[in-house]
């Protein structure tokens, strides 16, 4: 037997990226705006979704795709508000894959949806590496987690299109240095928008809803332009 060396240039994660590109195309076709919500467990993703979708109703319809290792509790929580809900149980996987989103789209009537919220598995590391076909990555950091988390988990913040600092109603009882957090984010991603928010008190909710609506409009505007050309 002879030994040979084979030189390749294969990009790993290409398969995931190709699936994500298909999803992005499907979203674009349907004229909906999709966001990938990433944070550690317990940062308030589901509560934020409950409040957000309630406020977007009835003018705008939302679909939610929720990833968790186990249970359908999050899906049950958002179900009263969302037009469509899909729960993905990832078992031992610490993040969602693009093909899981592709699969979940099969059961959805995308043409009736304006916003698709993908709630990723609670994890500050791995979800950042896997494109799901979303239009924007939104990173949530809740104030009780501490003001050192941007410096500790920098990669996910560098990938962010929007940072939501949640549970800001608790700032008065926490030793949380907001300037430090913003400075750490600036060092990674100087252009990213940061919203201080509380789902409980409603602080920042209007700004967040405007961000969603404005970004959807610019996305759909781009699509309209594309069609004319």
């Amino acid at each position: 037997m002879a030994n040979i060396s084979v030189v390749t240039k294969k990009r790993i994660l290409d398969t995931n990226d190709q699936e994500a590109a298909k999803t992005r195309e499907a979203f674009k076709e349907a004229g909906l705006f999709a966001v990938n919500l990433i944070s550690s467990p317990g940062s308030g993703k589901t509560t934020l979704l409950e409040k957000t979708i309630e406020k977007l109703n009835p003018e705008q319809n939302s679909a939610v795709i929720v990833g968790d290792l186990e249970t359908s509790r999050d899906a049950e929580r958002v179900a009263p508000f969302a037009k469509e809900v899909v729960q993905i149980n990832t078992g031992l996987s610490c993040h969602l894959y693009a093909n899981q989103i592709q699969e979940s789209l099969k059961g959805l009537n995308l043409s009736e949806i304006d916003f698709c919220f993908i709630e990723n598995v609670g994890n500050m590391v791995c979800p950042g590496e896997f494109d799901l076909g979303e239009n924007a990555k939104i990173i949530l950091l809740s104030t009780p987690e501490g003001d050192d988390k941007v410096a500790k988990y920098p990669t996910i913040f560098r990938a962010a299109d929007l940072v939501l600092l949640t549970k800001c109603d608790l700032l008065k009882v926490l030793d949380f240095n907001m300037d430090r957090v913003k400075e750490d984010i600036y060092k990674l991603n100087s252009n990213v928008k940061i919203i201080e928010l509380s789902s409980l008190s409603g602080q920042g909710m209007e700004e967040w809803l405007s961000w969603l609506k404005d970004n959807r409009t610019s996305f759909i505007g781009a699509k309209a332009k594309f069609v004319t050309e």
Partner: protein
Amino acid sequence: MHEMSIAAEILDQVIEQAKVNNLVRVSEVTLEVGFLKQVVPELMIIAFESITTDTIVERARLKIVEVPSIAKCNECSYSFEPKINNFLCPKCERADVNVISGNDIILKAIFGEVKE
């Protein structure tokens, strides 16, 4: 532990490349890993070893070549090597950059026995 997901995809690609090139056994795999990919080489090797059991890649050596990151400032076009938690351009002091290197994982080469 996204090393396991990555290892699974490396294995798929290695087996595909082995088939195309008539390799019956793979003894070495060279992987280029970008600095920004947050891959821990030791964990990557453990994940790779466990996932390749009972395949033609079993007991292959995984060689990991780390690729440094290069960022190019979108404002002044200056290129520099960022730190994992600091992407500020040394000239503009803003982190508005295009990463031109260090953000990929590439299967570079495989080495093994060919069918005669």
